């Protein structure tokens, strides 16, 4: 028991230090080199700072940091929940057609020049968010009476994914000049972060996160077979549908903000589950935390990896996520055997 507490507290302390460090890293590093003391001066509202640097730190990097934290938290939370709900370790929160729907929405808007109606920072947000919700809605409708049936949802999700991806490819085939844009967007980026976006999206994201955290009890029981869960008192059908709707909303907002960033929802819950017991009141908050740190970290790398330019963050998460996942797999195999 003692050994366990030690391991956990070391992890927590390390995480907190790492968290603070990563946040500071995110604020002080970027394409433009801003010396350390100037960063401090800007944060302390001192006077002798370069205006453009002040703008970059306050209006570009800080909103970006906040967005990365919000999206990182949300995606890993939804990933953990999906893995429990679908009893499948390989699920991503984009399962219910969200990623293909969002991509299609952005492609349609791009090809038919619909951004004239919703321009500015809300352009891609609007179309990706709405179409993500649309595909989830279609999947729920396809499932019909079996809305809470996992298998039916999975299969419908697969079908919609194929269909929307095909539509997307078709549109891009006839509009090759838009291809590069869409691919760039799909790989995800926090470049267009702003306080306005944060102001409108964060409150609802926090509410949704809190709602999901409050479902820890139900999720614990939902680890068991459907019959057993029902007999213990959980209204499995209702809970599943409710949780799915909330996660769909939350994931759709994330996709609207930053595109389809993969691997966060897949990897982070696994890492947490490897170290901590499978109790959702522990797993979920830790997924939030680790998701935020990981996303921040990847965003910093995305800004620094190649001088003078920014790489889409989805590439970084994949580059780090894939080998990380193999490492996790190896460790898990060792544990089981």
């Amino acid at each position: 028991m003692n050994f366990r507490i030690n391991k956990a507290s070391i992890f927590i302390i390390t995480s907190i230090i790492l968290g603070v460090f990563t946040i500071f890293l995110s604020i002080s590093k970027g394409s433009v080199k801003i010396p350390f003391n100037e960063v401090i001066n800007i944060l302390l509202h001192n006077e002798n700072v370069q205006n453009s640097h002040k703008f970059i730190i306050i209006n570009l990097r800080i909103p970006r940091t906040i967005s990365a934290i919000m999206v990182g938290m949300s995606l890993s939370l939804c990933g953990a929940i999906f893995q429990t709900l679908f009893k499948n370790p390989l699920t991503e929160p984009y399962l219910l057609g969200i990623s293909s729907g969002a991509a299609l929405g952005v492609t349609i808007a791009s090809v038919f020049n619909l951004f004239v109606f919703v321009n500015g920072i809300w352009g891609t947000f609007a179309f990706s968010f709405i179409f993500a919700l649309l595909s989830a809605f279609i999947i729920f409708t396809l499932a019909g009476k079996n809305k809470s049936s996992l298998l039916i949802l999975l299969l419908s999700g697969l079908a919609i994914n194929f269909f929307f991806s095909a539509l997307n490819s078709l549109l891009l085939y006839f509009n090759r000049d838009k291809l590069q844009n869409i691919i760039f967007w799909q790989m995800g980026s926090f470049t267009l972060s702003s306080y306005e976006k944060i102001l409108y999206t964060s409150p609802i994201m926090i509410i949704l996160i809190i709602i999901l955290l409050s479902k820890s009890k139900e999720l614990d029981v939902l680890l068991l077979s459907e019959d057993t869960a029902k007999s213990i008192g959980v209204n499995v059908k209702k809970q599943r549908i409710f949780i799915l709707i909330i996660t769909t909303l939350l994931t759709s907002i994330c996709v609207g903000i930053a595109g389809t960033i993969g691997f966060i929802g897949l990897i982070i819950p696994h890492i947490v589950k490897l170290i901590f017991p499978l109790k959702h009141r522990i797993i979920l908050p830790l997924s939030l935390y680790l998701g935020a740190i990981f996303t921040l970290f990847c965003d910093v790398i995305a800004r620094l990896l190649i001088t003078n330019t920014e790489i889409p963050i989805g590439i970084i998460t994949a580059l780090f996520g894939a080998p990380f996942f193999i490492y996790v797999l190896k460790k898990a195999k060792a544990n089981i055997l």
Partner: protein
Amino acid sequence: MKIEIENLNFNYNEKNIFENLNLKFKKGNLNGILGPNGCGKTTLLKAIIKLLKINNQSIYHDSVDINKLDNSIIAKNIAYVEQSSIQMPKIKTIDYIKLSRYSYDDFYHINNKVVNDTIKLLKIDKLKDKYISELSGGELQKVIIARALSQETKIIILDEPNANLDPLHQLEIMNLLKFLVKEKKITIITTLHDINLALSYCDQVLLIKDKPITYGETLKTITKENVKKYFNLNSSFIENPFTKRPYIILHQEKN
């Protein structure tokens, strides 16, 4: 708390499993449900705790139609013990047993009194910190019963608890059930496929096959005629030298 079934009709794939079934389970008894495979044992069991949807008003808990009762209310009255062959998540035994407290306030109590008492009662203290995925069949079945017991219900329903167990664990489980009925005054309803276990341990048996069901005291219900009628087998009774209760020997005629 009583379970009453009135005029239950149930179809599955256009096959009438139950037709006008009427039944009142006896409280404080060890009720066994016997019958050939596919005759509806498990179906009846699941219907009683609303795991299956019955459209008409047929099943009553304390005279209330179960369709009007919420899952959480039913969970406080009847607990369900699933077969130990089901896939289990990677959680510790004690955490699994704690899940039974979902409908109560003490779900998150670290030292849960009810759970600890149950563990002591069933003598599974050494299994407490093991992962349920690591337990043997017999251990797991006991743990699942412990979880059901922790639900503090007056009735416990079991679905073929002896299905994958060796003879030692089979008897252990049946003894445990007998203990719970006698000492804890819990009503047990369990499906069985071993007629002798029913003969040794059950107070009442329910025989199911096609339409007319038979429910009554074990010794009066498990007769040569009924065995032939429900199992299409010939039988002969001897005395079990240990329990002094009847012991059945079955024989299939070569036709």
